């Protein structure tokens, strides 16, 4: 199989380790600070936007690929990257358009699949 020969296993290992380490940060936040999961997601996205805005996060993405883009830090960094790129072309208007445009796929997919799932799945009965 050509595809299996084309896989960069070094990158795959770096992806596993970096992705895992980012999740450990989240786990430490959960265990040590009693932040609710909603707040943790907000913190990760906002930190991602800041790191993306400062131009630091792209080095993590170059190093770890999806280990950096799949965690929510990457979602935030992608928002920032889109906003900056489109702001450089269209100014302030671009700052409003670029972020959501860059991450539209994920947002739209989550809303769409969420709606479809609600049509199909039955709510589970809470045991409390």
């Amino acid at each position: 199989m050509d595809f299996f020969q084309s896989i960069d296993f070094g990158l795959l290992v770096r992806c596993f380790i970096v992705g895992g380490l980012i999740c450990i940060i989240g786990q430490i936040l959960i265990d040590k600070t009693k932040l609710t999961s909603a707040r943790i997601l907000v913190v990760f996205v906002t930190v991602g936007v800041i790191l993306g805005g400062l131009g630091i996060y792209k080095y993590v993405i170059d190093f770890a690929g999806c280990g950096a883009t799949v965690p929510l830090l990457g979602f935030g960094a992608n928002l920032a990257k889109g906003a900056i790129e489109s702001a450089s072309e269209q100014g302030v208007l671009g700052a409003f358009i670029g972020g959501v445009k860059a991450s539209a796929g994920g947002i739209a997919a989550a809303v769409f699949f969420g709606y479809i799932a609600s049509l199909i799945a039955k709510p589970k009965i809470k045991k409390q």
Partner: protein
Amino acid sequence: MNPIETAKEYNEYVEAKSPKSPIFKNCLHAFLVGGLICSIGQLIFEFCTFKGLDTVSANNIVAISLIGISALLTSLNLFNKIGKFAGAGSLVPITGFANSIVSPAIEYKSEGYVLGVGSKMFTVAGPVLVYGISASILVGIISCFFI
């Protein structure tokens, strides 16, 4: 047994009786599951670039596929079980964002499709989008002045 008199003694008593927080084990689980989810994403990404797609499209396909998989696992009630084991391992990747939308969408179906599904979907994802999008707009505006 001696009565507990001071607050310090009480704290020590509670400390001794409460279960030790298994933070090391939690972190190990989070590391393994989080790493695995990212690696699945990486394999999807490599497959897309192997098929000749550019990195932006490939990243979008990774996000959409992982969100689709977690929506499916949430509807089958399997995501909770993975989440219990993995903790932050399934929360911090984009799968956690997807679960935070899909899970209330299913759960609040009984309150109707508009005010139940449609609005409760965003109880967790709403704040994420509010802070993420607002911060990105600020970053974009600031970058106009500096670049």
